[in-house]
């Protein structure tokens, strides 16, 4: 079965720096990958989707890369702000066209 691994440790960074999160997967070749943000006590919120034929995608201060050879996605938050503090989840399409498989998430804390 497919396995998804995200940074196991929380990420603490200084405001203004770039946060880089990793999402590695095995035993599967997803057609696309999604990133979500989750704040404490809230449900995840969709941020970005990147397809297997796309190397990079950007949205405001967010950048996602997708390397199907390395089986890895990188999620970058540039010019980070304290408001970016949250847990970030990656999700892959599953064995059929409606299921998503989620990683455990990486918690980011941005210090002012």
């Amino acid at each position: 079965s497919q396995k998804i691994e995200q940074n196991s440790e929380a990420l603490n960074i200084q405001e203004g720096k770039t946060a880089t999160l990793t999402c590695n997967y095995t035993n599967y070749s997803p057609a696309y990958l999604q990133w979500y943000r989750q704040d404490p006590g809230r449900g995840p919120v969709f941020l970005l989707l990147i397809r297997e034929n796309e190397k990079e995608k950007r949205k405001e201060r967010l950048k996602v890369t997708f390397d199907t050879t390395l089986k890895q996605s990188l999620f970058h938050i540039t010019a980070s702000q304290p408001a970016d503090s949250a847990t970030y989840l990656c999700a892959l399409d599953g064995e059929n066209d409606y299921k998503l498989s989620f990683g455990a998430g990486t918690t980011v804390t941005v210090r002012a």
Partner: protein
Amino acid sequence: GAGVSQSPSNKVTEKGKDVELRCDPISGHTALYWYRQSLGQGLEFLIYFQGNSAPDKSGLPSDRFSAERTGGSVSTLTIQRTQQEDSAVYLCASSLQQVSTDTQYFGPGTRLTVL
């Protein structure tokens, strides 16, 4: 507009009791998902509803878990004879269509604690 709502927000119950969790999806969304999120774990898929099609129940962990969706809208997840390992946050999500590229909109979740 209104997002996905779930009730109750918190539920504390005793081992062996039955619980019902409710989800109100976004109006017009045909697809509805239930997930379970345990501490430090990823979201675990439980069940999927799409229109009038038979639900995908492949993620339900045991026969103590069941769910229904009435009239293609509101859904309830029922856990019978709750166990302590059922303690988790139960999240509901809906999307406009059935394909997983479509954005899933999540509710705030129900935190279930089984004593």
